[in-house]
């Protein structure tokens, strides 16, 4: 458990962590010495306060530049990893430094907004770092059949088509709508799949693939399950109502189906169960992907607003 869940500060992070701790310790000592002797406590307009403010703002600007760095990935201006570590550690340091800058006072309207923006940005960043540390491992374990996120829709469509073909191969046409690509596949795919076999009478004949059609009664049972439950699930796999969305319940459903279907249908049922499993995995991948990247929808706009308002604050405070 510890190995899987502990935050991994490997050798590459160690340098940054140690340097950040040293900087924090030095600044803390510096501020403490200042605050103890200051007549009205620390405040942003003092020399030390302005120094802390400038340093803190510089840390924030560097952290924000990571976005720009990612736009020019091939420019040789430092490895992306180094920029990411700088972003994490200097971004984290900016919070105490700005607190030192303001003497732990939130001040007026603008400065209060800035402080809250900074706190939320840093907290969202820490949360994002944690998510980006743990979620990839979960995704690697839970989603064995992972695909590229942008291709999930295509893969789901292909799964539906594969399931349709599987059921139709033993039950006949289902009467569901087909895509153009599927029609093309049907035109040549089935005949191309036929294998040539030598028949003992001495001639070579094209043998059809071994499929045994089910009886009407068996077909009706399978069709009812497929059209009533499985196909709607494959069309909208994120819906929670379907029992096929749960691995255990799905397994139970297919086990029950196996007991009433003949031997000739077992291979198809196995394929259908695998398709459902893959569909569930893709849903899980989507969820984890949103978790991995969704927090950026908060973090990035807030950080840009923070930089902008911080610049406004700096100009106004220095000028007026």
């Amino acid at each position, binding site marked *: 458990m510890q190995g899987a869940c502990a935050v991994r500060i490997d050798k590459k992070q160690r340098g940054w962590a140690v340097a950040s701790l040293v900087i924090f310790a030095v600044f803390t000592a510096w501020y403490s010495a200042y605050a103890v002797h200051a007549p009205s406590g620390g405040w942003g307009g003092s020399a030390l306060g302005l120094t802390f403010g400038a340093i803190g703002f510089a840390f924030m600007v560097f952290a924000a530049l990571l976005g720009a760095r990612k736009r020019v990935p091939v*420019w*040789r201006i430092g490895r992306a990893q180094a920029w990411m570590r700088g972003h994490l550690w200097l971004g984290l340091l900016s919070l105490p430094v700005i607190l030192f800058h303001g003497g732990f006072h939130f001040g007026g309207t603008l400065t209060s907004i800035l402080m809250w923006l900074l706190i939320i940005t840093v907290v969202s960043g820490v949360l994002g770092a944690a998510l980006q540390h743990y979620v*990839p491992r979960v995704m690697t374990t839970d989603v064995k059949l992972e695909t590229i996120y942008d291709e999930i829709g295509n893969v789901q469509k292909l799964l539906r088509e594969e399931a349709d073909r599987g059921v139709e191969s033993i039950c006949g046409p289902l009467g569901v709508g087909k895509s153009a690509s599927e029609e093309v596949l049907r035109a040549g795919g089935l005949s191309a799949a036929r294998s040539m076999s030598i028949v003992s009478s001495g001639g070579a004949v094209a043998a059809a693939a071994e499929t045994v059609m089910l009886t009407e009664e068996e077909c009706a049972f399978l069709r009812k399950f497929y059209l009533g439950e499985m196909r709607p699930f494959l069309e909208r796999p994120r819906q929670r109502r379907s029992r096929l969305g749960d691995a255990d319940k799905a397994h139970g459903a297919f086990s029950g189906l196996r007991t009433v279907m003949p031997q000739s249908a077992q291979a198809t049922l196995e394929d259908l169960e695998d398709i459902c499993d893959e569909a569930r995995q893709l849903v899980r991948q989507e969820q984890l992907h949103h978790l991995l990247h969704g927090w950026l929808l908060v973090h990035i706009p807030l950080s840009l607003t923070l930089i902008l308002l911080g610049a406004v604050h700096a100009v106004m405070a220095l000028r007026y």
Partner: protein
Amino acid sequence: MGKGYSARIAFDLNAPMGDSTCISCGECMVSCPTGALTNKTVVGTSITAGPDAQGFEAEELLQLPVFKGISGTFLELNRGAIVKRRFQPGEIICREGEFGSTAFYILEGKARVSLSAPIAHVKTQGGAKGLFKKLTSTLAARDADVRSEETRDRTIPIDASVDLAYGNPVAELGPGDLFGEMTCMNFYPRSATVLADTDVVAFEMLRNVLDIMMKNKSFRAQIDQNYRQRALENHLRGVPMFADLSPDFIEHLKGSVELQRFAPGQVIARQGDAAKNFYLVRIGFVKISETYAGGELVLAYLSRGDYFGEIGLLAGGVRTATCTALDHVEVVRISDDDFRNMVKRFPSVRQGLEVVAAERGAQNQQRMQTVRSVPIDQFLSQGLMQAQSLLILDLQNCTRCDACVNACADAHDGITRLVREGLRFEQYLVATSCRQCRDPLCMVGCPVGSIRRRNSLEVIIEDWCIGCGLCARNCPYGNINLHPFEVMVEDLERPGRKKAVVKQKATSCDLCTHLKEPSCVYACPHDAAHRVDPRTFFSEMLGGGAAK
């Protein structure tokens, strides 16, 4: 097979006709004394006729000297599989890169064969020298961008009785010349553009007709003579060790060598057999492989102008590898006696051979040590040990941000050479990016032999790539892309004028050698992307596992 009542038709070792080596030539029907064997036309085989095409009756064809000895019944049964075409001056007979299934034999007139693709390779530049210099992919000729171990500085192999000079890739074809043989027999793309210089009269034929004609002694002799006169010397001189042979010895070789044909799958030389001959490839592809305890490793695919068999001859020993015809192959065989005579007369040949033998021996030993040190059977099924360089993504670190893909696209004019999808091995994803395979399937079928590998086994695409896309189709991992470039070329239909066309060049991962480190690895913010040597990477992993 069988006799009497139980007799039946069978092909090869009782394979179905469609799976056998039968080419539907109809000779069995010609030979059948009772006429029991007959031809049923299931699919009409005929070349599309046009206003310039003229079909034949068998009697008319038999009047022509080139058809002397061909079975009249065969020609009758295959009417439509050979037509006579007339081309006016300036008319294009065939274009490079187009797929086809016919060969041409010139009866009258002269034609010009050339490459219209720019003789240059894709070079990515910019970025490294300045922050604001955009990375662009351009075409660079050899003198503008020298790459180590580039080969074939003399001739470009094409599918005709001549080869093209690198500096001026134009040659002339005349009466008695055959071109398009590889396209016809093996369905490879056309290797060059052929343009009628004068009024040209040519036969266009399908594979079954060409095959019968190649079996005909008089036609065969004429083709062989053309090859010996026009291309053989260039091929011989193309072997580095033969560069200093005297003209009289070359003339002797031209007369004494034998041309041998091999069917697809036929073994030319087997590993462990006594070494007897030296071979030059005239057409087709030859697979060179080594067998070891765990399976087979493909060392190379050789095409027109390449050679093999010299190492075994030097030591008077055995073949160190198995050489197999991948398709319809024709080789030039230099006999043991001629080879020894050559080595005796020209010490430089022996010296060159010894250097090559030493290098090959070291490479073989290193390769075998690698192969034996890792339980590769586990990885062979995934093809991972076939690779020399893998892009591995550690899925436990990877946040699926696609920074690697974006960086690759940025480094190559917007066309990524990497896809973040592929095989998974434990927590690692083997991304789709050129693996520098030990079995480079991409090389099979290149009509101009432009995709090859350096001595380091890294895949290189030479300047004369014609952009046909066959290598991209052959790569089982989808790792080769076609990069379009706008170039100005001669307008063949309006001589003296140029026109802008889009030409494609095959590209694959080049490890960003112009930037010293792969951009995908450089741009990954989470330490997830790594370029690894699978030998050391997997042996470390397996070694750690075994220790447990």
